[in-house]
């Protein structure tokens, strides 16, 4: 009797293991995300890509990949050339996941058959990297999650040595981004706009800009405005995103919560929000950040559109700082401690854009005012900083600029 009962239990239990969690992904053709697909063509090769949102991903793969920090990118390559081509997923994301890895982290706890089906489904959805002439290959590459805009390159290498590079910027539904809410054209009335053709006039204008950001009332000065970016919205955006900068979320209860978790766990939440600083009587038009190791190690950048153009290009005034730790303050309880050597951070940004081929010209101009290390100035939360008083002026480009083609204009020489 006892034995039979045990057997029954075992039988029930094993049924539970095999039958309980069922794996039912919905085939790709039923999903609408392909309507957002973008196509680019270069030299007989067509590349079409699309990025499913969190909900669409759950449908297609039957599991929540976004929650695991994995974002599938769908790619279709049509080779109308005469040579076979290789697709290199490393170019898309150097730390991409393999299909079976993405499946493994999504495995059910108690379903051997379900997991097996998941493995072969993921493997089938993967992307073959070798594309023969006259064929079309499509599939998913599993990348690290980027919210907001997914920016990536698809590098294709012909067996004849021909390189084709396709750059994509695909908006993914789900994240509120600072600048996407702002209508740049409406920021200033038409009669307020000024256009500079002459370099001297432009330099005089830049030198006359306020030294620093201010608080909402405009009564106290904060971080120095040590950055001028020249370029149209697209150029600025693409250059920074290509260099690995992320858009930031505006502060909402949800995002503050996510930042809190990232801070406590020492992990990093790449899109954590920044607090507002004021120039031209308003908070920043765009805020970007670049994470280094953990959340305390980040670089922050804020940009404000100025009511001027230089030779037809928009001009942005900005502030950049390097977070080096977290400290307590009486004003905001917790704040990021910034590197007091703000010129170092400014120099980092020049290098960063240069190395990611987003910089075409740069120079320095006065306007911040000298603050030596012995008598530093203080920002709004009481962090000291010192500076040589110069601003970096950066001409950015959405098209890659070769390393040795970057120009330095001698408006102001860097001090020793």
């Amino acid at each position: 009797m006892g034995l039979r009962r045990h057997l029954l239990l075992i039988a029930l239990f094993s049924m539970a293991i095999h039958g309980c969690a069922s794996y039912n992904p919905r085939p790709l053709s039923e999903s609408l995300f392909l309507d957002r697909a973008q196509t680019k063509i270069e030299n007989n090769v067509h590349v079409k890509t699309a990025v499913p949102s969190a909900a669409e991903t759950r449908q297609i793969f039957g599991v929540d990949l976004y929650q695991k920090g994995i974002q599938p990118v769908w790619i279709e390559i049509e080779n109308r050339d005469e040579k076979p081509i290789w697709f290199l997923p490393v170019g898309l994301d150097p730390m991409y996941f393999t299909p079976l890895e993405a499946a493994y982290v999504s495995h059910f706890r108690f379903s051997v058959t379900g997991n097996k089906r998941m493995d072969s489904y993921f493997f089938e959805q993967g992307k073959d990297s070798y594309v023969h002439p006259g064929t079309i290959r499509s599939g998913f590459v599993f990348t690290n999650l980027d919210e907001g805009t997914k920016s990536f390159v698809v590098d294709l290498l012909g067996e004849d040595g021909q390189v084709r590079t396709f750059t994509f910027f695909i908006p993914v539904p789900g994240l509120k981004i600072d600048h996407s809410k702002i209508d740049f054209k409406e920021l200033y009335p038409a009669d307020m706009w000024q256009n500079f053709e002459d370099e001297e006039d432009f330099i005089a204008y830049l030198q006359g800009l306020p030294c620093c950001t201010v608080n909402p009332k405009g009564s106290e000065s904060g971080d120095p405005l040590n950055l001028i970016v020249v370029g149209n919205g697209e150029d600025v955006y693409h250059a920074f995103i290509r260099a690995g900068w992320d858009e930031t979320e505006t502060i909402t209860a949800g995002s503050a919560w996510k930042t809190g978790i990232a801070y406590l766990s020492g992990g990093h939440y790449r899109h954590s929000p920044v607090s507002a600083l004021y120039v031209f009587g308003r908070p920043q038009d765009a805020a970007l950040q670049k994470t280094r190791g953990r959340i305390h190690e980040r670089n922050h950048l804020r940009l404000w559109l100025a009511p001027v153009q230089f030779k037809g290009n928009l001009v942005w005034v900005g502030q950049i700082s390097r977070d080096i730790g977290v400290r307590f303050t009486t004003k905001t309880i917790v704040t990021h401690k910034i590197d007091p050597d703000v010129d170092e951070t400014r120099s980092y940004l020049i290098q960063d854009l240069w190395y990611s081929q987003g910089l075409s010209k740069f120079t320095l101009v006065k306007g911040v005012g000298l603050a030596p290390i012995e008598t530093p100035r203080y920002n709004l939360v009481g962090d000291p900083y010192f500076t040589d008083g110069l601003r970096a002026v950066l001409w950015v480009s959405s098209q890659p600029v070769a390393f040795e083609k970057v120009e330095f204009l001698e408006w102001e020489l860097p001090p020793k």
Partner: protein
Amino acid sequence: MRRIWRLEKMDSVENNRRIVVLPKSMCTLAVCILSGVVFWGCATFNPQPLNEQPFRERAVAQTENGIRISAAVLGAEETEAVFGLQLYKKGIQTVWLEIENNTQNRMWLPQVSVDRNYFSPLEVAYMHHSGYTKAAKQNIDRYFHQHAFRNPIDAGTVQSGFVFTNLELGTKAFNVEVIGGDQQVRTFTFLIPVTGLKVDHRDVDWDSLYASHQRIDFESPKAFKTAIEALPCCTTGEDGTRLADPINIVIIGSGEDILYALLRSGWGETASVSSYDPMTQLSWEFRYQPVKSLYFFNRAQDAAFRKSRSTLNERNQLRLWLSPFVYNGQHVWVGQISRIIRRSVWEKFVIEPDVDEARGYLRQDLWYNQTLLKYGYVRTGSVATLSEPRKSLYGDSYFTDGLCLVIWVSREPVSFSDVQFVPWEAPVTERRKLLLVR
């Protein structure tokens, strides 16, 4: 407890001595605590005035087109002696650079060329502030600010200082790029051994691996290809009878070129088994932990490398054996590469069953890092599919198209479009189809 101690006291003479010692050690403890209090209360920062002579003496120097660079990497103890702080504990490694500008132009060193995520001097200073007085904190800041490498390097001058990089043990591989008014980029590559950790390939006695009559030279591609095809499919366990993971990589090039190629692409060396003791290793040395040995040519791997992704538990690992083959005067290395996707609850590393993925990753990785010269494929094993996978030594199952990747590495950067394909075996076009069906 106390009672036992009393009993012992009465029992032996030897223990009597301990009784005398005990109060004394307590005394020392008290002194320690007291002095600790004193130290914490008003810790001061008094580093020695910087003497660059020792770095200059042992520095590796390179000259190109009017620019001379000397570089030295500071070990853990040396760093502490210079800065009076344990930078290694925070994962920071100091590189000393001296740049002499003999051109007519002003030059710059972009620190990102040395380490894309370098630390700024005051950031490093800030990490070490805790426990110091306000004045001492200021001293620390000034000291770091003063001794960091400063741009620009004016024509005809010499500039020296430190760059603060992320810690790497074993061999530190880095570039130093100098750019300037003449719109020219000069790139210098350094491979500098760091004192401290002993890596596996420094344990190998390369000269005694093969006697001169064992060496087999190949000139013809066909004969070489046949020799590779004839190699056993797989590595084995120690006894040589049970098959382990498949051989899927052949690298052609000198040991130094391969080391350079791998280190430049972000691969890390692993510690030699004989010198590595997990109990005494410092926490930051964990990532150099030796890999499990697999056997080929009747011996464990000569060198093992790993490349971590976001965590140490997700990584690719590569084992290499020097073969007795020499192809067109170059050494031939046989290897096994696999991708570890997770560490399971039972402390076991889970290996990606699609082993060919790891092979493809290495090819791309070297390609992007401009160290890949040529590549091709050779068949060394048979096909194993997803539904009928093969078992490896430690119970992992894997499937594969049975091809082995042959790569030639280069010390000189190879531009993206100059990488050549050697058409020995065609890559499988319908790989997914081939491995799914049957």
